[in-house]
């Protein structure tokens, strides 16, 4: 049984096509380890019947020679993607009992490629969080255990914490996530797996519950860079239902994985080396630099002067958009309603009970920065700074092909550790937020272990719509790093 779980997506795909394993068999194996690992709280909803039904259809197609690219691959879906007929929560109480009558474009694409849905993954409420501790459905555990805190469960990162933990724990072959400021990459780093945030516009946002519309982007969490390439190919594509979706052909990302980095210019922005950052993060970056240099890349010291403004800029723009995006959860049409004495009372009670503390905090921040008299000082200024940050990327990419940075400023911390200090929590996104604001693609690849024997990732950032090069360099780094460590928990 464990041998089946050891197969990564690419290997499982080949085993399925060669009929060494059936889709039903593979799916049953995953369903069984899912139910014996409930304590990790990776899933809000599991969909075993749907999974087996999809798997048997996959088997049918494989057996009749009509196999689809992802036929029989059991995957997990972040509970931010609306799934037809399946409870969709966004990790929030406010969507209480909400069962969509429609399927998000990204998941629809995956099913059309033959993938099998295991269930809906836990996440920070409305994707707001960096530790997966803000979910109405409880915190998610990271399957990794720290050496010095053996008993204390760790966070998987967030907001796609359920997805990351599920993949790291082998409770899914791969998972979808969404990344607004680092919500795929940071949990990827914390859980020792690959997390890819594609270019803004690469994957449709239609049917994905919005957090911050100008930043939200769906992407995969996988065990390997190749798996990420395979998943992205299935998830991506132009969607006329999303005006911000890019009208571009989806390349065959997998064929970009040549491992060849010779002659590439790889920039290391000096602004990403922070005072007071753990030395092991800096050391990890040096390891990455050395590997790529050895492989024939040229390492270039670059400057991106507006990097330090990225985090405050992000924490104005994202809450501003969120405060408006979340206005529709008013108790009138779907989800939770707490009756009140009058309309305003109903609104107040519903939203007070329905939203958690972090969501309320961001709605308040967002409402404030858009208010008359504050708009220019906050929102408008943040938009201007965002342009400068984008310009930093435009300029630097005239000089280099990709950037190499740490993914997160630390390894995974204990559940509850940063909950009382929002600023400290927000600092988790310091390396991931600039690429989000610029819209450029970025991947986190596990490269080493911290002194606590916890995984640490490095981030490769590329030009707009150049996921191919991001994946190529990520693949090369992955190969050289040879990260083979496994978490203590999970299947």
């Amino acid at each position, binding site marked *: 049984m464990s041998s089946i779980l050891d197969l990564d997506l690419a290997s499982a795909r080949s085993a399925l096509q060669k009929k060494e394993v059936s889709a039903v068999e593979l799916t049953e194996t995953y369903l069984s380890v899912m139910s014996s690992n409930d304590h990790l709280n990776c899933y809000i909803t599991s969909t075993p019947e749907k999974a087996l039904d999809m798997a048997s259809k996959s088997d049918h197609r494989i057996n009749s020679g009509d196999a689809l690219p992802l036929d029989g691959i059991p995957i997990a879906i972040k509970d931010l993607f609306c799934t037809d007929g399946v409870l969709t929560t*966004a990790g929030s109480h406010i969507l209480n009992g909400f069962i969509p009558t429609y399927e998000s474009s990204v998941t629809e694409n995956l099913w059309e490629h033959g993938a099998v849905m295991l269930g809906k993954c836990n996440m920070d409420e409305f994707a707001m969080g960096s530790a997966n501790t803000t979910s109405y459905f409880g915190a998610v555990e990271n399957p990794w255990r720290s050496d010095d805190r053996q008993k204390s469960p760790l966070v998987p990162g967030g907001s796609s914490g359920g997805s990351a933990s599920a993949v790291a724990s082998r409770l899914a072959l791969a998972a979808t996530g969404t990344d607004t400021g680092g919500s795929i990459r940071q949990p990827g780093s914390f859980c020792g797996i690959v997390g890819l945030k594609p270019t803004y516009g690469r994957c449709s946002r239609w049917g994905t519950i919005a957090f911050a519309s100008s930043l939200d982007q769906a992407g995969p969490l996988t065990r390997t860079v190749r798996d990420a390439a395979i998943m992205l190919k299935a998830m991506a594509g132009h969607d006329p239902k999303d005006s911000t979706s890019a009208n571009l052909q989806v390349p065959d990302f997998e064929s970009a994985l040549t491992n060849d980095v010779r002659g590439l210019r790889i920039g290391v922005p000096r602004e990403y080396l922070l005072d007071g950052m753990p030395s092991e993060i800096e050391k990890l970056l040096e390891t990455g630099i050395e590997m790529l240099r050895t492989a024939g890349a040229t390492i270039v010291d670059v400057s991106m002067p507006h990097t330090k403004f990225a985090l405050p800029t992000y924490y104005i723009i994202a809450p501003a958009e969120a405060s408006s995006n979340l206005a529709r959860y008013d108790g009138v049409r779907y989800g939770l309603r707490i009756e009140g004495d009058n309309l305003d009372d109903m609104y107040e009670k519903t939203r007070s009970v329905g939203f958690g503390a972090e969501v309320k905090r961001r709605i308040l921040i967002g409402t404030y920065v858009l208010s008359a008299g504050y708009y220019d000082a906050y929102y408008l200024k943040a938009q201007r700074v965002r342009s400068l940050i984008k310009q930093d990327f435009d300029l630097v990419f005239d000089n280099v092909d990709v950037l190499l940075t740490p993914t997160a400023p630390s390894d995974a911390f204990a559940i509850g550790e940063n909950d009382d200090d929002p600023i400290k929590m927000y600092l988790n996104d310091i390396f991931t937020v600039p690429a989000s604001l610029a819209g450029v693609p970025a991947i986190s690849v596990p490269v080493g272990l911290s002194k606590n024997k916890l995984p640490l990732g490095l981030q490769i950032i590329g030009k707009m719509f150049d996921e191919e090069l991001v994946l190529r360099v990520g693949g090369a780094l992955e190969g050289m790093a040879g990260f083979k460590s496994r978490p203590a928990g999970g299947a």
Partner: protein
Amino acid sequence: MVQLLKGETGEWEIVIGLEVHAQVSSEAKLFSSAATKFGAEPNSQVSLVDAAMPGMLPVINKECVRQAIKTGLGINAKINLFSVFDRKNYFYPDLPQGYQISQFKQPIVGEGFLEIEVSDGAKKIGIERLHLEQDAGKSIHDQHPSRSFIDLNRSGVALMEIVSKPDIRSGEEAGAYLKKLRSIVRYLGTCDGNMQEGSLRCDVNVSVRKPGEELGTRCEIKNVNSIRFVQQAIEYEARRQIEIIEDGHLINQETRLFDPNRGETRSMRSKEEAHDYRYFPDPDLLPLKFDDALVQAIASDMPELPDAKRTRFIEEYELSEADATLLVEERETAEFYEEMAAGRDKKLSANWLGTELFGALNKEGLSLAESPITAESLGRLIELISDGTISGRIAKDVFVDMFESGEDALDIVERKGLTQISDAGAILELVESVISDNASKVAEFRNGKDKLFGFFVGQVMKKSQGKANPKLVNNLLKDKLG
């Protein structure tokens, strides 16, 4: 002319600006493919986007953009090749998204103007802007004692908000502006202009000042849904403001409602209670960009608008200004007129359309489209009058028949033997017989009682059952009595 209102302290000038919400004529909504038909079953024309289901995204309907450009050209306005959709945030149950998608800082259409005709001549009214926005749904409060119902059919329907400059100075001007605007959008087919169904709604900004002084504090009267009500609301509101100021108080800037039953305006919310809409660019939509070629293509496909048509009618058909103005107000009327008058007497056609046909239609409560008499058919009646087949007098009877039966004029004339008698010999016989039958009246006439001439005409006409050619009757009578 500035219409001044007399107060206790002197004369006051009313300053009016109008914000018109015109529903765009389009098959689908501004950002969704749901239908827009008026009067459908509640909540039967609602897409996932209109109901603001989680994860739904707006996609601009290009047809609505074309309609806005067309309207912009129709009001002589600058078309902005780059414009931005913003979110206007507020909570209300019939606003499912919790925000309305509108255009705030960068509208699709910039400054323009309209020419209006009022009793003392023509006047130009400036237009500040036209922008596209979504309509809200409808809250229904009278179906249940403690609950409200929501109909989202209208939610997301495209509106053009057309904002005038504060150039309007009287209720009459406001009415003329609305009529002209309504006429233009109907000519263009960009809005059906139906105020009763709410396709055209109006917010009225009113302030008063002593002539020559700075603008006063204004009040906005929301959602006035007929031209008459707009005029009543302005009249009432101006009087109310003058009284307040003359009593030594200040005007509160506020939003007011017009109560058509009582003919008065009432406070709805004060400036302090006004919403902070927190406008910001909608991140779900890219800025709206199109090139000048699109504008040119739309411009080259514009129908002749009422002002141009009116000028042409006056020059080409030698109609009076009053007739021309009346005929061009509605595109349908102008088209009816041109079809009816083609190759026929223009002035006579205008009279018959304006007086007889509209008179009859109004009496029956019918629109021109429902007229039992077609343009061509009415035109043939004009021909019969012009060529002397029937007299104008007989034509009126024929018209009544036509209106009832839809029968052709000539058929009626032939069937009823109404052809005018233009045979001078036949008429002379009638004239002579009238003269011999009324010897005493003839004597009075010859003694100077000129008024009796009409009596003799009447008698001859009566004898001919109205068919005698009146001109010949006149001439022959003059001869014989002279």
